């Protein structure tokens, strides 16, 4: 570990932040590598070394997490959700979502339950990881403000 590693961490974090922000855009490795100031050839490997998963997987699961949120909290159609979170086709979206979440988008929507937590917390915890996704689907409301 060294300042060099910390600098690499920081630049990989910048690319990850870009995925969390711009998941709806057609982000690709060259674009992310530019944000991180590394060569496209090194980007995916360095990202995986830093965060434990490839950038492709990270982005795919961010898109699925954002789709879960729209399914829970809006009445937007599954097809519209697919494009809104950055998937290229409804078929790919449905297959990817079902493979990761274990339920189809429509099944997921029917089972959704609400709870009150901030968006940043949802984004950190609901993005599907290596384990089963949480059973409780949560909505994004801020906790009640204290009296000032």
């Amino acid at each position: 570990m060294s300042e060099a590693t910390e600098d690499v961490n920081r630049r990989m974090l910048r690319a990850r932040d870009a995925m969390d922000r711009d998941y709806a855009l057609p982000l690709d490795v060259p674009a992310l590598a530019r944000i991180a100031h590394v060569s496209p050839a090194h980007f995916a490997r360095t990202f995986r070394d830093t965060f434990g998963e490839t950038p492709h997987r990270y982005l795919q699961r961010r898109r699925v997490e954002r789709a879960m949120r729209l399914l829970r909290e809006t009445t937007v159609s599954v097809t519209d959700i697919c494009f809104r979170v950055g998937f290229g086709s409804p078929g790919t979206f449905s297959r990817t979502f079902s493979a990761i979440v274990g339920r189809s988008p429509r099944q997921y929507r029917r089972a959704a339950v609400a709870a009150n937590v901030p968006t940043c917390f949802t984004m950190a915890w609901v993005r599907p990881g290596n384990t089963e996704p949480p059973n409780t689907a949560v909505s994004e409301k801020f906790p009640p403000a204290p009296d000032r």
Partner: protein
Amino acid sequence: MFTAITHSQIYVLDQDEALDFYAGKLGLEVAADVDMGDMRWLTVAVPGHPERQIVLAKPGGPMMSAQTAEQVRDLVTKGAGGTVIFTTDDCRKTCETLRERGVEIIEEPTERPFGIDCALRDPFGNHIRFTQLS
């Protein structure tokens, strides 16, 4: 039992740089800056609110081995450090002001059920948010 939260702590990798960022760019007030040579007690607060301070702590010192400090630095730069959430009266305007000051905005002001919300990174990787509550 408890009556208030007075201090919360986040790790920063360099306290001079942290001071420049949190006071110079984010506009917080220095609540305490006690330099004791090897250690420095550095806290900031929202102007006019010294009752709630953020301790800008540097990993290291006798309480932490060099190896542990290195692990903390590694985690902070990966974004696995702390989060602080502020409130603001005007999220969009604050965001523009901070952007002009060169602050790294990681999430544009976004309408949420609880208000308008925006996020930035400090120079070390800590996650800072500010919300205009609705």
